[in-house]
Structure formats: structure tokens, C-alpha cells
């Protein structure tokens, strides 16, 4: 069954993974800008990274008939140094008009600091100024609940922001309802050890409904599985969900949200 992988860090993955994704039915994937597992030594390193996201990865994906899209920003972890972060942000205008760029992301908080919040809000303002959708990372483990609340409060202060232009990712049982109640989209990340397992993601669909929600693998350099979405689709099938319901969550919902970007297009 066709699906969209709405969050994958393919710069960290092998070409074999692109083939596996294609064989599993992936038609398009979206790659948010993120932390590389180490802090970059200079803002210029992000110039190369943004080229990788806008030139190199789309070409790798195209070899397997997968459409590649990306989101650009400086990630929350490196945003704790605001001077450094603002230098990186000066690079963004050179890339935001590239044909595979969807919007601003994955911005957010990491350790819930004032520095991170300042850069988060500057990114949101940039998205607002350009009419772009926003993809938001929520913090890990014990920091997620507090960070999600802080960002929801912050977003509510942007009077011109359409909440349906924002997806808040990595939700779990304790954050999903507050995100949906604020009018945003919610993303569930399927990880083997943290975030959601497929069983829990399906539980969340059962308790919270099928509207404004997607699931993703967020596969990267850490413990993660690029086939997590098709595995969850299989688990949905085992739990008796119809093809239509599975397709809604794995294809229709991400397509509907991503269509907020004028660059999103599934035609090869």
C-alpha cells in the first residue's frame, strides 16, 4: 500500500534504505533539518547541510522513484547558542525558495531554555512572514511535557498564525490531546525505545481519533527503523483496521497537511 514518510533523516541513512522504503510503498518522504549528532563547528557547515537537503537527497531519492521534500531551520539543540543560531538563520533565505522546501522545521525546544525559545519564536515569525507551514520538534523524555506546554503557549501569542499550518511532532499519550485541542496537527514518531511503539500509536488513534494526525519513523543516526511506518500499517491491519482507515493515516493525512506548502506535489 502506498504511504508517505513525513519525517525521515535520510542524510544519516544508506542508499539501501531508500530501496527498502520504495519496496515498502513509500511514494514521498520529508526530511526536516536536525542535529547531526554533534554540534557543527561553524554556521557555514549549515550551508553545506542545506545543499545536501535541497540538492543531494532529492537526487538520491529520485533513483528509487521517491519524491523528496525537506524542512529548513537550525535545530533546537544548536539553537541554545543564539548568536550562532542567528548566523545560521541568515542562510535560510538563500534556500527557502528551492523547489523541494516545504517550510520551517524541525524547530522547537530541547532543554526548554529561554535561548531555545527565542530562536523558536524567530523561526515561527519567519514562517509567518513567508506564509510557510511549520514542523515542530518536542523535547525528549522527561522534557517533553513541559516543552510542549511552553511552545503551545508561545504559538498562541502569534495572532496571525493559523494553527492548522503547524504540526507538532513526537507526541505521546500525555501531549497529544493538548496539541489537537490547540488546533494543530500532531505527529507520532515510531521508535523502538522511546516515543511511540506501533501498538501505542494505534491506541492513540483509537482514543484520540483519526483527524489531524500522522505517523512517522523519524529514522536517523540513532536507534530507529526506516520501515516503522509500514510496520505500523501492518499492525493496524492485524488489529482489524480497513484499508481505507490505514490509508487515511499513512497517506491521506500527511498529504493533506503537506499540501499547505505550494511545493508539495506527488507527481514525479
Amino acid at each position: 500500500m502506498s504511504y508517505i514518510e513525513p519525517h525521515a533523516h535520510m542524510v544519516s541513512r544508506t542508499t539501501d534504505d531508500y530501496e527498502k522504503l520504495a519496496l515498502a510503498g513509500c511514494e514521498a518522504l520529508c526530511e526536516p533539518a536536525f542535529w547531526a549528532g554533534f554540534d557543527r563547528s561553524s554556521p557555514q557547515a549549515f550551508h553545506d547541510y542545506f545543499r545536501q537537503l535541497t540538492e543531494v537527497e532529492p537526487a538520491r531519492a529520485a533513483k528509487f522513484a521517491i519524491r523528496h521534500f525537506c524542512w529548513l531551520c537550525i535545530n533546537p539543540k544548536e539553537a541554545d547558542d543564539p548568536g550562532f543560531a542567528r548566523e545560521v538563520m541568515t542562510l535560510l533565505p538563500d534556500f527557502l525558495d528551492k523547489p523541494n522546501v516545504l517550510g520551517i522545521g524541525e524547530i522547537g525546544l530541547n532543554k526548554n531554555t529561554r535561548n531555545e525559545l527565542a530562536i523558536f519564536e524567530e523561526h515561527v515569525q519567519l514562517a509567518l512572514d513567508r506564509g510557510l507551514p511549520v514542523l515542530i520538534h518536542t523535547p525528549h523524555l522527561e522534557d517533553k511535557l513541559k516543552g510542549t506546554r511552553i511552545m503551545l503557549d508561545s504559538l498562541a501569542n502569534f495572532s496571525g498564525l493559523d494553527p492548522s499550518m503547524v504540526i507538532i511532532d513526537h507526541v505521546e499519550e500525555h501531549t497529544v490531546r493538548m496539541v489537537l485541542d490547540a488546533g494543530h496537527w500532531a505527529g507520532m514518531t515510531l521508535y523502538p525505545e522511546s516515543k511511540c511503539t506501533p501498538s501505542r500509536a494505534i491506541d492513540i488513534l483509537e482514543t484520540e481519533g483519526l483527524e489531524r494526525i500522522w505517523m512517522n519513523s523519524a529514522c536517523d543516526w540513532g536507534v530507529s527503523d526506516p520501515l516503522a511506518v509500514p510496520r505500523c500499517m501492518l499492525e493496524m491491519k492485524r488489529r482489524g483496521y480497513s484499508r481505507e482507515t490505514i490509508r487515511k493515516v499513512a497517506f491521506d493525512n500527511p498529504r493533506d497537511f503537506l499540501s499547505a506548502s505550494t511545493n508539495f506535489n506527488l507527481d514525479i
Partner: protein
Amino acid sequence: MPTRKELLDMQFIDARARVIDVAAFLDRIDRHPGDGEEPRLKALRRALPILLSDSPGRAKAVLEALSDTSDVMPESAAFQGATGAPPASEPA
């Protein structure tokens, strides 16, 4: 939608294994030298009784028990990364 029995048939062995794993983990911690009640262990012990609740929302309650609920917002991070349990200063 599967029945309760069908779900048990599909997932009971997995849940059983996870509960035994947690029990064995606590035994392992007890057997080894070091401070017994560091914040992660305290947080885990605080979360475990939630499993025995008769109310729905156990997963949400466990996640909340393992979350930082403070209002403190530092200027910058003292360290990167996350431990999986609230900071030591939070009440047990």
C-alpha cells in the same frame, strides 16, 4: 476491532515478557553496588503502582510521572540530553 481475547492472544506474551524484564531489572539494580535511590529509580518506583490502577489512561499517567513538571526555565541548558526522569529536585 479485535475482541479482548483476540488482543490477549496477540499481545499477552509480549506484555508478560516486558513485566518480567522490569522485575529482573529491579532485582539487578538491588544486586549491584552503588546508591540505591537515585532520581531515575525513584521515578520508576513512583510510576509502577500506576500499572495497577483500574482507571484508563495508565500510559499517560506513567509518562506524567516520568516528566519534569517544574516551572523553571533556565537561560541556557546546563547539559544536553535527557535522562528519562524528572530532575532530582522534584518531590518523590
